[in-house]
């Protein structure tokens, strides 16, 4: 089973360009209904299917995404 991951998005720096949405293989991200202080709809996590692949972070032009991934469990 795929490892679990999580993303933390700096919503104040997000410009809502949606590049991360197309990069995510598990449709974890979507744009918010709310806007940040600059008026951009920011990217947010909408489900828990994240595997921590960091595809979203590597294409983010504004470097707003931090990615976490659980440690691989060693097989006995």
């Amino acid at each position, binding site marked *: 089973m795929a490892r679990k*991951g999580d993303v933390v998005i700096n919503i104040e720096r997000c410009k809502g*360009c949606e590049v991360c949405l*197309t990069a995510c293989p598990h449709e974890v991200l979507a744009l918010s209904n709310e806007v940040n202080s600059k008026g*951009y709809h920011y990217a947010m996590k909408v489900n828990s299917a*994240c595997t921590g692949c960091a595809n979203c972070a590597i*294409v983010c032009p504004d470097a707003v995404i*931090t*990615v*976490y*991934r659980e440690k691989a469990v060693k097989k006995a």
Partner: protein
Amino acid sequence: MAENNLVHPDNLVYEKTSVMTDRVLHYCPGCGHGTAHRLLAEVIDELGIQGETIGVAPVGCSVLAYYYFDVDMQEAAHGRAPAVATGIKRVFPEKFVFTYQGDGDLAAIGTAETIHACNRGENILVVFINNGIYGMTGGQMAPTTLPGMKSSTSPRGRDVATMGNPLKITELVAELPGTYFVTRQSVHAPANARKAKRALKKAMEYQKLNKGTCFVEIVSNCPSGWKMTPAQSNKWMEENMFPYYPLGDIKVPENQ
């Protein structure tokens, strides 16, 4: 929620590199410049050469690049970044010197400086962002604008009969004896961004060998100039830019 436990420094797999400053980038939403900046900063971080790197910023959208890289930076006159980088590298031959230029800077006003620096084989890294348009000044036609591509100064599309052909400057410099590594990449999708990062890393490492100019073109988008959403512009780039500017290595060192 159990998954919140994952947000812990031990589980960190990706965060913004410290070689990029915390300043908010001025680029439009979805612009490839931000991604290219970050990948280059990550390469500098991973090679541990932050203190040994000197960058040269161009004129164009990326004129403020010196705000975003936490390394020594020098601003150059429009198009003259390779000439300025030449001077810096000759004074500090042990430093890692790169220029970061757009297509209006590198392939239009700076064509002479680019070609001569590459022909002399200056031991620098040239990062070339090609989005086929003058972004900063309002989307005018650039030498790299595709045939038939609309811009604010070619509203009916670039007519090759009157406006000439797009300049494939990357293929051109690959022909010169002074270049050591010439490649064309893109940063719009995860796989491409990872490849581009590997290319930038290789190019930076080759600088230690003193073998000649490394030239990395990054085909990029310009959502504002092309009048598209970022997602549309990336798709348009795949369908139109890549057939004309095919991705991949153009000149690789012989023993590699």
